[in-house]
């Protein structure tokens, strides 16, 4: 299908086309496919398009109706529209009663419930949130029981710990992510997440190790060299940073403002008399 050829930059055009003809089903379908294909997070778009497409375009969706329902569920969670998410879950559960993938979605809904709304009665709200949090962890444990290498469940645990927003939470997320990386050491996205976690903890030295793994796993991606250069600069290692900035510019000389700025900053810092490393 031509939808497989869509690139992220097509979204701007498609969105404009959607605004002009909001009932055009083919545009709607293309947008949802693009968002799924490139994992772009636009819950506002999905919720505007998804339910309508399900109602009016069921025929043209064919098998992708399952993907669309999952997409709507997740977008609804992003916008905290738990009722809509629950609706999609019910349909998916009826059609795939033994699916671990659907169980994972059920757990995600509990995750979303685990955030107490500060506007409601604080004690019961806090207790309900606690219960939902535990229920989500239970479901992920059940999934891992049946499938010990279920990457999705392992990663969701990392996310749950990270979204606590505390130092301890993020530290535990690092531990959980390390467990995942033992099983999946070539998952470059996981190494990126690890770098993110360390940066959140302001442990730039450890973030650098993770970013070095990212460069090893994606050596022709200009962005990997760029991120590592930024970490090195932050650590004060301007000469090594400059090398990675240069490499990044070699890989992408045209649309790489960060590397260009970085190179200038490193060169300035390395000037004699500036005390640069």
């Amino acid at each position, binding site marked *: 299908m031509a939808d497989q050829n869509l690139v992220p930059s097509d979204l701007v055009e498609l969105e404009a086309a959607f605004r002009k003809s909001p009932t055009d089903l083919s545009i709607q379908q293309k947008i949802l496919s693009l968002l799924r294909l490139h994992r772009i997070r636009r819950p506002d778009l999905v919720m505007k398009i998804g339910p309508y497409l399900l109602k009016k375009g069921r025929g043209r969706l064919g098998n992708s109706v399952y993907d669309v329902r999952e997409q709507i569920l997740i977008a609804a969670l992003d916008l905290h529209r738990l009722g809509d998410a629950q609706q999609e879950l019910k349909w998916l559960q009826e059609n795939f009663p033994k699916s671990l993938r659907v169980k994972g979605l059920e757990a995600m809904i509990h995750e979303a419930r685990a955030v107490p709304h*500060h*506007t409601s009665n604080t004690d019961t709200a806090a207790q309900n949130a606690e219960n939902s949090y535990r229920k989500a962890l239970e479901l992920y444990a059940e999934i891992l029981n049946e499938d010990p290498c279920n990457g999705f469940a392992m990663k969701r645990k990392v996310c749950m710990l990270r979204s606590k*927003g505390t*130092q301890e939470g993020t530290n535990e997320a690092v531990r959980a992510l390390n467990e995942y990386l033992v099983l999946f050491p070539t998952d470059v996205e996981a190494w990126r997440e690890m770098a993110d976690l360390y*940066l*959140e903890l302001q442990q730039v030295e450890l973030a650098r190790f993770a970013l070095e793994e990212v460069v090893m796993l994606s050596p022709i991606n200009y962005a990997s060299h760029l*991120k590592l250069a930024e970490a090195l600069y*932050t650590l004060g290692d301007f000469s090594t940073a400059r090398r990675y900035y240069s490499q990044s510019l070699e890989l992408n000389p045209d*649309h790489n403002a*960060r590397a260009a700025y970085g190179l200038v900053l490193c060169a300035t810092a390395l000037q004699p008399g500036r005390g640069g490393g």
Partner: protein
Amino acid sequence: AEVKISQEAYLKPLLHALKYPASAVNGVLLGKCTKKDSASIQVEEAIPLLHAHLSLSPMMDAAFCVLDEYCQRKGLSIVGYYHANPTIDQPAPSPIAKRLADRIYDTVRESDKNGEVCMLIVDNSELEQLAQALNASRSLDESSSRLTGVSVLTKSGPNWTKSARARIEGADDGSSQVLLRNQLAEGRHLDLIDWDAHLDDTSRPWLPA
């Protein structure tokens, strides 16, 4: 120090945070600092900076180089820092926010021994209450209009504490909050270009003309 925040400097950080609800975002506050009888900070503009990897320094350094020229041109100085955390329960200000705000404080103090700096933090749970109030009715009643969704802090010793003398233009009668809701409904937050977005595509304008 007394802190006065213009309507624009109130709206921008919130629009920025709402464009990237899953990330921490930050920015710089520009304005004027006067020391007549008591110190008073006037925050006129809020310049959005980053929405990713706030603890990495090179792009912050680059932003400040570019901002230098802008400030000189407009006759403004750096008078503060703003920060929004992605999770609702995160204690504010986070360690990263404190570190960056301190850096700005030190830099300002380098050139002006009596310079004052403020920090504006988005208070996510108050923002949620404000959202509920705004969704419920066209304008805010008296009790709801004390909700702004932000906290203003000033530095006393090594700590940042909530300022008792902070005023936001248009917040007392709720008109700034209503304007926020209207701008969100129009999708104006999606048009906001921060330094990160500008670096991704330098044809996108970052600083106001």
